[in-house]
Every structure is written in C-alpha cells, then in structure tokens.
C-alpha cells in the first residue's frame, strides 16, 4: 500500500516497466501473447501489485471463447470494477451476451461475475439476464442465479424487490433440483436477515414440506442451510415440531460435523414442549454425535466444545457418562485443552470424581502455565460442587502445594480460600499455606492468603507476625491486596481484643495500617474503607457494632462454576454453531452496530478502500486511456491535485466518506467495553466508593465470582443510595 502511494506521487513513465510490457501484451495481435499477458496481470494482482491501470486493456480481451481466459478477465473485473466504474459499462455487453451462451458454464459465470461487480450502474443491465437465468433450463445456472439475487439485493434492494425477484426465489424453493432449493433458501435467508421487513423467507406448511424433502438430497452445505432455516423457524404446533425432529434426526449420522451440529440445533430447539418420552429419546440420541464431534479437526472441536458447554448449562445431564471422552490428549492444542476442562467440571459427579481428580492432578503437573492453573482451579470447583469429594480434593491440592512449583502453589491458595468458605474444618492446613508466604507474588494469591489469615486469625498463632510483615510493605501492594490487609488487620484486632497477650500487638498493627491507609494513600477505595473501619471502631468501646459488621457470617457459596445468565443462555442456544455461541456473547456485542438500513461502517470502509485505490491510480489510469500522454502533463495534474475525469467521482466519494470512517474505531469497541463492565467481578478495582463500601461490609471481595456476591453488591449499593 505504502509503496503504491509513493509510486502514485511520482508517476513513472508508462513507456517502460512491467505495466508497459503487460499493456503491450494485452494489445498484441497474437492470441497466445494476449492470454499470457492476462495471466501475468493476474499474477501481479495476486502478488498485491496494483494493476488497475490496465483496466481498459483487459476489458478488450473479454469477448473470447477461451474459457480460461474469460475466467481470468472476469476475475480481474471483479477486483478492479470499483476503480473504473465508468468503464464497467463497456463490459456489460459481453456479460449480457455470455448470459445467453449455449454453454451453461459460461451463462453461470456471467451472472455470477455480474453480481460481484459492485457498481450502481450495472443494476439496470443486470435485471434482464438475471430474470432469464433464474428460469434457465440448467440447474447449475439456476443455482448460481439464485445467489445472484442476494447480490442484487445487497446492491439495490428497491430495484430487486420491484423486479419481483424475491417472489421468483420463493417459487424456486419448490424447484426440482435440491441445490437450487438450497441456494434459493440461502439467498432468501440472507435478504430476510438484512431487511426483516421484506418477509423474504416465510416458512409455511408447504415450504416446510419442500425443505424437508430437499434436506435428504442436497449437498452437505445445502443441508446446513436448510437445517439453519429450520432451526430459526418457530412454531407452536407440537405436531409440526415432532415432525421436524423426526425428519432431522437421521442427519445426526452425517459425516460433516457442521451438518451434525446444525441438526442438533434443530432438534434441541424444536423438542421443547413435545412429549416427555420423546424428549428423553432425542436427548439420548444427541449424546453420541456430540461426543463424535470431539474427535473432529481441532478447530471444529473447539467450536463443538464451546457449544457443548452451552448445551450442558441448559441440560446438565446429557453427557454425564462420557467424561472420559473429554480427557485431554497430550498433543491437543491448548485452546482445546482449556475447553475440555470446562466441560469436565460441568459433568463431574460423585461417580466419576475419582477418575477426574486423578486426571486433574496429572494436568496440574504439566508445563503449560495457563493450563496448569486452570486445572488447579478446576479441582477447587469440583470440591465445591461435590460435597463428598471435598476432602479428596483438599488432599490433592496439598500434594500440589508440596510440589513447590510457584504458580501451582499460588493458584492452589486461591482455590483453598473458596473451599474454606464452604467447608469448615480444614483450618489444619493453614500453617502449610503460610509456609509459602514468601513465594506468593500474584495479587490474587496474596489477597487470598491474607483473607485466610484474617478470617482465621484466632486459630493462627503468629497471625500478628504474618500480617505485620504485610503491613510493612503496605504501600507497595496492589489495591486488591491493600484492601485485604486492611480488613484482615481489623479482623485480627477484633478477634484478639480479649487476649491480653496479643491485643497490644494487634492494636499497634491496626494503628499503623489505618494511618497508612488514610493519610499516606491516595486511593479513594482504600481511604474510604479505612475511614469506615475507623469510625466503626470508635463508636463504642466494646466494638459490638464493628463485630456485627466485620465479623458477620458470610453467605455460603454453592458453586464457583460460572454460568451464563439465563436470558443470554437462551439467546445463545438459538445461535448454536455460530460465532456468538463460540464467543458466548450476544451477536450485538461483536457485530458492528447498524442503524437503519444504511451501509454499515465496515462496508463503507470496504468501498472507500477500493475508491482510494482508484484515486491513487487515477493518474496512471488516465495515462492508460490516453496512450500517448507525456510526463509533464501528468506532473501538472498531480500538482493541481485534480484527478482526471474517470476518477473524479472517486475523489468526491472519498471526501464524503471521511467522517464516518473517523468514527468507526470508536463505534465497535464501545459495545465491547460495556460488555466488559458487565463481566467485572464485584471485587474488581474498577468500582467507585460504592464498590469499596460493599466490599468492606461483606468482606467478600475475593471471589466475587458467584452471583450471591454480585447480588449483595447491588443491594448494598442501593442501601447506600438510600442513605443519600
């Protein structure tokens, strides 16, 4: 690109060099030389060189009976049409002729290419050929023309509708040829998606019948199209839903995983509300194909695993017997391994827990740090999920802590903190955790450890000493850790108040930390919390209120496995197999926002990119048009900044489009940020004073991952608002 730009600033003489040679070749009197020149032009195009200046010369070679040559010329036209919108009209004649060629391959090629030439003027010339090819005797031409309607609609919806092409497509759902049916459905689905007001794709009982007929006959990709349409179709008629399920189930046996997943989607969505024993039967039938998806290509596996994750959140019991399938192979790509872990913890139960724990321990001793940490976390998650397994999990975690591998120990500490919150009686392992205090450097782990020390201060002999060392380095810690130190010291103080041997030490600590946090710290969260503690502690001498607030019982946690909110989950289940189901985000979160029916920002940028290329090459192109121009003239034009006639349109367009482009980078991330905010855990550092307060009261800021904490967060926020 940059090279092109520089070149266009200093146009070289078109009399020598590659372009000149190619132009000579294209205008040669010998057909083999012309063909070779076309080939070379396409080769240059492939290499990313800009050969749009040859447009007029290429177009002369369009009318040929050599199919290969024609294909190359057409390819060139598609790529560079935007650079010479005016000259495209010259090509129209050949297109129209070709669309009536006796060879169906050429008819299809003409109509396919015509639709890809995104120049407004072409619309008028396309109507007739499109109408004819839609009724062509060859199914190959018809299936190409069907897709072309979608292209036409994309270019000019109004004219497309006026010409009745949508009705023609709707009729073509009844075509005798399965591929024509599939492409017509595809085109209608796309039109319907880009403008729902068109009601382009309406599934009626008769179309449903046709779709189900074609399903068994069309190609794998056609099946995906039809299945997707069936999945999007909503009906309250239970009989109809049963019928759809019955007809779609055989597709579970298709070799193509996208057909299988699309079929699973249809059955999953339509079986809701049909007879319970049928639901059971279909659910049972769904499991083996889902399992087989896990042995497809790794990338496809990844999509399948993300989808299985969603299905399990809706129906936790569909794969409980299949846990072994999700065991990681040592050569699985990391992204597959992590997803398998997510699935494993979801289908963990009392029967398979022993096996699973052995596996998880094995993973925790691997080398890939992300994977190891996730495996350790998984051990904690199953400990909380399955009561009877807690003890075994703690044993495994202790073994892991004994390995002294730094990141394993740290992750284990974070996990143990959650276990403490659910199960009492494991305080015995605290000394073991504290042995590793010096190596713990990750904020999460440090915070977890300090929380444990504060929470069990009365049971840890040297709690004062441990916290003392943290208080010394208070100012160097991250916010998360500072908050924990603060809370832990206050807890220690309250718990040792009656113990004469320790009370003076803890009082000393308390004073240091409160002073540090209020006068030497400029973080509002920390200052606020410190002040609140201070006030609480100075209200009454025996600190009854402070006790009630700070040492209050915490609500027990029931699960640390994150589930999507119900609404989002339902939305995503209807999007199985799509990108949304992979990202676990609603489409709106990653798609550019489209207001009204105008072109999207990306589309504008795409068009602008082509126009820009056109403008850059306008000079060269102008030179091409006037074969004998001289260099001085060209230089003049360049200094004036005015483009030759053929590109003037492009220049204006560029200016028009400037403003929307500037906005583009802002628009897209905006929505993502919002999403991120929602995802922030309650204990995150992003909150204002309210967030800090909430943490202080609940003493819960560590996990923050369970919904309980979040709800509580909301509640306390409201309370605080009420105060004002």
């Amino acid at each position: 690109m940059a090279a092109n730009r520089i070149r266009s600033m200093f146009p070289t003489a078109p009399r020598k060099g590659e372009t000149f040679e190619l132009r000579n070749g294209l205008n040669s009197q010998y057909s083999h030389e012309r063909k070779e020149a076309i080939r070379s032009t396409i080769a240059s195009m492939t290499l990313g060189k800009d050969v749009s200046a040859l447009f007029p010369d290429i177009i002369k070679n369009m009318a040929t009976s050599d199919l290969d040559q024609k294909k190359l010329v057409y390819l060139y036209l598609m790529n560079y049409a935007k650079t010479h919108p005016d000259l495209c009209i010259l090509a129209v004649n050949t297109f129209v002729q070709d669309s009536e060629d006796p060879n169906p391959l050429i008819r299809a090629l003409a109509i396919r290419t015509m639709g890809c030439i995104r120049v407004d003027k072409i619309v008028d010339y396309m109507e007739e050929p499109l109408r004819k090819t839609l009724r062509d005797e060859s199914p190959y031409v018809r299936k190409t023309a069907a897709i072309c309607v979608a292209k036409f609609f994309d270019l000019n919806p109004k004219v497309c509708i006026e010409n009745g092409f949508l009705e023609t497509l709707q009729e073509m759902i009844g075509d005798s040829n399965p591929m024509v049916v599939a492409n017509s459905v595809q085109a209608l689905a796309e039109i319907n998606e880009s403008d729902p007001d068109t009601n382009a794709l309406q599934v009626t009982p008769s179309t449903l019948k046709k779709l189900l007929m074609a399903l068994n006959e069309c190609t794998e990709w056609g099946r995906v199209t039809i299945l997707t349409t069936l999945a999007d179709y909503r009906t309250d008629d239970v009989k109809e839903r049963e019928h759809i399920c019955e007809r779609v189930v055989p597709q579970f046996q298709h070799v193509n995983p996208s057909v299988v997943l699309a079929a699973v989607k249809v059955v999953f969505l339509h079986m809701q509300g049909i007879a319970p024993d049928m639901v059971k039967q279909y659910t049972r039938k769904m499991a083996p194909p889902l399992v087989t998806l896990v042995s497809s290509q790794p990338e496809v596996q990844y999509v399948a695993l993300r989808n299985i994750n969603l299905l399990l959140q809706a129906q936790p019991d569909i794969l409980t017997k299949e846990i072994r399938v999700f065991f990681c192979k040592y050569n699985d790509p990391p992204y597959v391994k992590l997803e398998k872990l997510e699935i494993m913890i979801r289908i963990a139960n009392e029967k398979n827990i022993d096996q699973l724990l052995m596996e998880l321990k094995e993973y925790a001793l691997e080398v890939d740090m992300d994977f190891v940490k996730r495996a350790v976390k998984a051990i904690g998650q199953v400990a909380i999920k399955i009561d009877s397994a807690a003890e075994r999990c703690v044993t495994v975690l202790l073994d892991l802590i004994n390995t002294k591998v730094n990141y394993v120990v740290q992750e284990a500490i974070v996990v143990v903190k959650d276990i403490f919150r659910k199960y009492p009686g494991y305080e015995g392992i605290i000394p073991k955790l504290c042995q590793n205090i010096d190596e713990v450097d990750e904020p999460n782990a440090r915070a977890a450890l300090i929380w444990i020390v504060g929470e069990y201060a009365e049971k840890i002999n040297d709690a004062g000493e441990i916290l003392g060392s943290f208080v010394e380095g208070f100012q160097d810690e991250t916010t998360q850790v500072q908050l924990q130190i603060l809370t832990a010291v206050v807890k220690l103080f309250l718990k040792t108040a009656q113990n004469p041997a320790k009370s003076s030490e803890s009082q000393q600590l308390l004073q240091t930390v409160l002073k540090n946090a209020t006068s030497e710290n400029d973080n509002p969260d920390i200052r606020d919390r410190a002040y609140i503690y201070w006030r609480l502690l100075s209200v009454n001498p025996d600190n009854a209120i402070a006790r009630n607030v700070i040492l209050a019982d915490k609500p027990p946690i029931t699960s640390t496995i994150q589930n999507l909110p119900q609404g989002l989950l339902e939305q995503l289940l209807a999007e199985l197999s799509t990108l949304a189901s992979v990202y676990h985000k609603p489409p709106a979160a990653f798609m550019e926002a489209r207001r009204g029916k105008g072109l999207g920002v990306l589309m504008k940028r795409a068009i602008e990119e082509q126009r820009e290329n056109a403008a850059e090459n306008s000079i060269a192109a102008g030179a091409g048009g006037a074969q004998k121009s001289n260099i001085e003239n060209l230089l003049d034009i360049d200094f004036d900044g005015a483009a030759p006639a053929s590109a003037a349109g492009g220049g204006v367009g560029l200016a028009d489009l400037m403003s929307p482009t500037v906005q583009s980078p802002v628009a897209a991330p905006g929505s993502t940020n919002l999403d991120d905010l929602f995802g922030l855990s309650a204990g995150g550092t992003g909150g204002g004073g309210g967030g800090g307060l909430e943490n202080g009261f609940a003493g819960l800021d560590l996990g923050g991952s369970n919904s309980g904490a979040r709800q509580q967060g909301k509640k306390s926020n409201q309370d605080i608002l009420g105060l004002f």
Partner: protein
Amino acid sequence: MASAIFFLDLKGKTLLARNYRGDIPMSAVEKFPILLLEAEEESSAVPPCFSHEGINYLYIKHNNLYVLAITKRNSNATEILLFLHKIVEVFTEYFKELEEESIRDNFVIIYELLDEMMDFGYPQTTETKILQEYITQESHKLEIQARPPIAVTNAVSWRSEGIRYRKNEVFLDVIESLNLLVNSNGNVLRSEILGAVKMKCYLSGMPELRLGLNDKVMFESTGRTSRGKAIEMEDVKFHQCVRLSRFENDRTISFIPPDGEFELMSYRLNTQVKPLIWVECMIESHSGSRIEYMLKAKAQFKRRSTANNVEIIVPVPEDADSPRFRTNIGSVHYHPEKAAIIWKIKQFGGGKEFLMRAELGLPSVKEAEPERKKRPISVKFEIPYFTTSGIQVRYLKIIEPKLQYPSLPWVRYISCAADYHVRLPEPTQT
C-alpha cells in the same frame, strides 16, 4: 458465510486472496498477524476464531500456511472452519501438497476452484472428483468447452453418469484405529475404537449398493438372532451418498457410491477392550547421572494373529547421551532429535511377551528448569485380518438395474494404533 478467504504465509503476508462480498476492507488482513501475536502473548491458548473491531477472523494452519476467512456477520463458525479444511483437502488432491510454493505455482486454477467452491461467501461444490471433471490443469481447447457435469447440482452430486469398467470390482477395507490412554499406574483411562469402512469402487453405470454388517441394533429391530457376535456401534457417520433416513428407519446402509476411493462410513465404540499391546515401564534414575528404562511389551490378542511394524516410542530426557540397549527382539535406536528411544519389532506374535532395557547417560550440567512436559510412551502397530470390535461385513449387494453385470467385492480387515499412549511413571531414585 465468509466475506473473503486468504492464504497467508506464517508471517501473515498474503499469498492469494479472494474477496467474495466486498463488505470488509481487504486491508483487515494486515491486522491478523498482529492480533495473533497479541493473543499469543496473553495466553498460550489462542482460539481459532476471534473478533476485532466488528471483523471476525477464523483460521486454520496447514503446513507453512494460514488459511483465513473473515466475516462481519454472526456466521456459522463450524461451517466456515470446515470449509477451510475442505479447501485444504481439495487443493491437496489437486496439487499433491498444499504449501506456499503450490499456491504461487497454481494461482490460476486456485482462483477457478475458489470461484466454484464458494459463491458470495456460501459454500457450493466441494467434491474433488466432480470439480476435476470441469476444472482441469490443462487448458481447455477452443473446440471442446468444458460444461458443468450434471452431478454438480444433482441429488447424486458425487457421481457422474456413463462410467464404464471392463471388470467390475469393489474393495472394502475395514480399518479400526485404537485410541488408548493408560496412566502410570497401569489403569486404562480411555479406550476407544474408531472404525472406518473405506471403499475403492470400480463399477460401471449407476450401481445401487447395500452393505450388511453384524449390527446389533439391526438384529434386534428385525428380531433375528445372529450366529456369532453382533456389535453395538455408538455413533455412526456416513458419507453423503448413504441414505440417512433409510438407515434411521431400518438400519439399512444403501447408497450409490462415488467412483474410486472414498470413506463410506465411520463408527465409534467406547467398549472396554483389553489393550492389544500392553506396555509396562519402569524407570530408575541413578543419582541423576544415568537413567535406566525397563520395558515389558505383551501382545494380548489371539495366537493366530500377528502385529506388524510395532514401534514403541519412549520419551527420554533431552540431551541424554551414550545409550545402551538390550532386548530379546527387534531393534532399539536412540533418536536425540525426538528425545526418544524407538523400539521396533517387525512381527509381534499374539500372546508373546518381550523385554527391553535401555540405559542412558545424563549430562552433568542441567538446565535450571527441569523438563516437566509429560510426554507419554506411544505405540504403533498394525494387525491385519483382525478387528478389535469384531465387526463383520455380512454382505455387499451390488445392483446396476440397466447393466446387470456380475461384480466382485473384496473385503479386508485391519486394526491399528492411532492415539495409543501409556503415561510414564516417575523415576525411582537410587
């Protein structure tokens, strides 16, 4: 639906691209290597699809290439990723090997194929055999213009009409690959049979085939009692030529086959079977200067069968030296480049048991971080005339209504190891 497809080298430079929809600036591809790098820095697990500024990138890696699709809609990710794999498959059949060089050398035909395989971002025809009928490497002569084969759009989109053979033959290969994972205590964690029925069809006309297997579900539904064993396949996948609704109804496998080689079906069995070749390993580490491996391999199948080309690959520490081996069969070699010793046994008779001892020296200077990547022992073998599951072809009926020729079906069985791993135990210190 994909907006554009790119072939990139490993640095992210575009080798060839096809813009199908013109709704995304093609310069978006320049961001791809940068995004990939950023993601790699953040985590070791970079997923095969991600989104950036409203553009979704879906890619696969093949040899020294990235094949990338971009889209701005909430497209079907499974379909796109599979289509990318399909591109690789078709191009590999066209050019033998798909890599940087073959892209450069064949750009004309690649554009033609991309045009035929996808239209406006929607996958179209991806059957290599049919594509080869009208998209060929030799340029078309002026007189005879290629025409789209009827098969492209037909219900039978995988077979052309008018195929003729002098001798009508069908070869059926039943191949069972075994996936096995044994942990270091000798417990089988996972054992799975992935079976495939591959066919080579050299039949004239449009033959109707019907394949009968000893399928338990079919025996049960038809109420017939089978002589001998029937097997229960957990999941079956069929080539698109098989009539799926027919199978769903009465478990009949009926189809019009493609011409030549193809995979008719694959199936999966999760049943616990005795591992065919059992490997036990003990490791002794002598004060960190020498390491000793003791291996026992046992063939746990019937005496009349033989496993061929058995390879037992044992990972050893990097930089091990001065290897010494002792075994009562086959050959053992040290492969430093793989950090493994490979024990090869040409023929391993059923019921036999063999031993191997290996001793390697360890370098005195060790790396600070000990290698903890746990590679398992891998085992490779093939056992002809034998299937682990006991699957059997009961019949293969071939009927060509018009030509009515006699035909010969040939059936072969073979079992082999696929992901067959035994985890290494911790070395005992002496």
